[in-house]
């Protein structure tokens, strides 16, 4: 990082003046938390006693044997409380919100995983919670809407634009501009204005730290390849971060290619996007003529976002990480494959990472190791996969 909030040329704080004092305040407060032993102890306790960390690093023996190449491990973030890696970030941010004396937290959500996690942490820590969710996603992920409401959160469907994650972020930022004095914006990915990409990455970096320790214990060496799906990029950043200096470890982010990068129905930001400025950051975005933000598409509501976190943009430009696309079809195949082979139903987001690993594993030798970040569980996706396959089920 060359200067505060920048990863190479990416990052920054491109937000309305109304919010500038709030992000500076958060930056200052977070710096103190980061070195505060009480904060760190409370967070550790939440991780271990509430969300069930460390998560397992599971050797997928059947999958490995079936593919006949590299040894495959799954980092089981799907086993966390609330069913995905999102809880790691949220427990930290809501704890910060509480310590800052905020009364209310707001969040955007795509698939609903971040919304559910935020609603959960807000319930636990006694804060009011409102989640903004694109109307389209409230339909795709209706169960998660009810889940958030069960947890005491208010879910506000966003009816502007493409009615998906991008618009949910717009709505959350607009609410925050109005409510910033008593409200904390709990951002769900390594994106947005500084300090969010840094805070979310730090909180998610527990994933990579655990993988490193677990791998050394199990195999006595570092893995060769790390694979994670990328929308905004928080689970990937969390997995990659502790390995950035270990140059021999290959880092691969898998983007949602929807119906294919050659079509206009995809969400493959690095493959098809251009550098731009949006949602508080300079990064890669899928854009249309004139620099408007283009509508994107993926079967996965969690990857259906036209941008990517600025640190990923930097890892891409500096060639430290590689970003590749996986289509809806490939992801659904991987979803079914992992369910049948290992008895683990992965989130459709994580299935993109599984799909790419399935492509490369057979070509690698048996002494190589791939770690796939299984960022979430697939229960939430069962109905939409059934719809995709044309199976009629009574939800």
């Amino acid at each position: 990082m060359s200067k505060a909030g920048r990863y190479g040329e990416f990052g920054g704080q491109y937000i309305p003046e109304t919010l500038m004092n709030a992000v500076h305040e958060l930056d200052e407060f977070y710096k103190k938390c980061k070195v505060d032993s009480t904060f760190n102890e409370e967070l550790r306790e939440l991780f271990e006693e509430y969300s069930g960390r460390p998560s397992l690093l599971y050797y997928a023996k059947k999958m490995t044997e079936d593919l006949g190449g590299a040894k495959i491990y799954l980092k089981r973030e799907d086993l966390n409380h609330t069913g995905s890696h999102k809880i790691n970030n949220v427990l930290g941010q809501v704890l910060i919100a509480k310590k800052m004396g905020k009364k209310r937290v707001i969040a955007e959500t795509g698939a609903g995983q971040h919304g559910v996690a935020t609603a959960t942490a807000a319930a636990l820590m006694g804060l009011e919670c409102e989640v903004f969710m694109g109307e389209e996603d409230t339909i795709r992920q209706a169960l998660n809407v009810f889940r958030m409401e069960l947890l005491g959160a208010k879910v506000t469907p966003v009816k502007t634009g493409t009615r998906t994650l991008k618009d949910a972020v717009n709505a959350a930022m607009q609410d925050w501009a109005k409510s910033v004095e008593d409200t904390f914006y709990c951002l769900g990915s390594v994106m947005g204005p500084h300090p969010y990409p840094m805070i979310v990455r730090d909180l998610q970096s527990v994933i990579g730290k655990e993988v490193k320790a677990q791998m050394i214990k199990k195999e006595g060496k570092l893995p060769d390849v790390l694979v994670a799906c990328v929308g905004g990029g928080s689970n990937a950043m969390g997995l990659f971060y502790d390995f950035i200096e270990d140059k021999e470890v290959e880092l691969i982010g898998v983007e949602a290619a929807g119906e294919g990068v050659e079509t206009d129905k995809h969400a493959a930001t690095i493959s098809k996007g251009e550098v731009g400025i949006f949602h508080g950051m300079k990064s890669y975005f899928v854009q249309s003529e004139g620099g408007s933000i283009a509508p994107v598409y993926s079967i996965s509501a969690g990857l259906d976002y036209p941008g990517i976190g600025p640190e990923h943009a930097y890892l891409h430009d500096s060639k430290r990480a590689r970003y590749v696309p996986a289509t809806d079809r490939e992801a659904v195949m991987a979803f079914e494959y992992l369910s049948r082979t290992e008895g683990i139903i992965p989130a459709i987001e994580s299935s993109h990472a599984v799909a790419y690993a399935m492509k490369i594993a057979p070509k690698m030798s048996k002494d190589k190791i791939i770690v796939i970040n299984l960022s979430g569980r697939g229960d939430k996706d069962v109905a939409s996969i059934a719809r995709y396959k044309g199976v009629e089920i009574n939800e």
Partner: protein
Amino acid sequence: MSKLQKAFEKAKEKGRKAFIPFVTAGDPHIEDTERFVYALDKAGSDVIEIGIPFSDPIADGPVIQRANIRALDNGVTIDKVFDMVAKIRKTTDVPLVFLLYANTIYYYGIQKFFERCQETEVDGVILPDLPFEEKEEFGIYAKDCGVDIISLVAPTSKERIRDIAKEAGGFLYCVSSMGVTGTRDAIQTDLKAMFEYIDEYCKIPKALGFGIANKEQAKALKDYADGIIVGSAIVKIIEEYGKEAEEPLVRFAEEMIGELA
């Protein structure tokens, strides 16, 4: 003194505050926007703000969001807006300010954008998502081309106002309310406290905007600043009357200007 600052001086000489209306370029069509600018100019507007449509105008409320969508659906591009301004410049030298989001300029090319502003005599730009900290990247080109980047201060800015005001060009855009643009029944901010800061540090004209919708509000608020900015209330008129909005726009502008004396 920049042309924008002279516009405030001229209003002052007339014994009133400046009136700054806002229209979205291409709403409903770019030819209509051109006519609306002439109408607002004739009605006595001191500076006219032209919004360049963007898919995700995060600082704008529902009224201006809808105008952005209408304009984009009609295929408005920044080049078409520059062409319109070039035409307008044959008729009037009323100061013009663009309101647009950072990505629109970034995508177009920062240098090329400000050069075209200079060519077509666009006097300033307002970038609601470009705070003080990020200004330099755009500011160096703007300065070379003699275009003012208008800085904004908000009710939450507090001690930031000093640094912002010190480097502000053209006029200082004082955001009256929290949240996004849009008409409001009442302005909740403690403007007196906010302007104590502003008045201490700001040496250029001050314009108050966000939520000012009618002559009662204009009358009540005008004393804080050197001018008032009206956006959503005007865009609402255009939304209602479409192509036929000229007359109601003139009526509205004249009424508002009447209150600013």
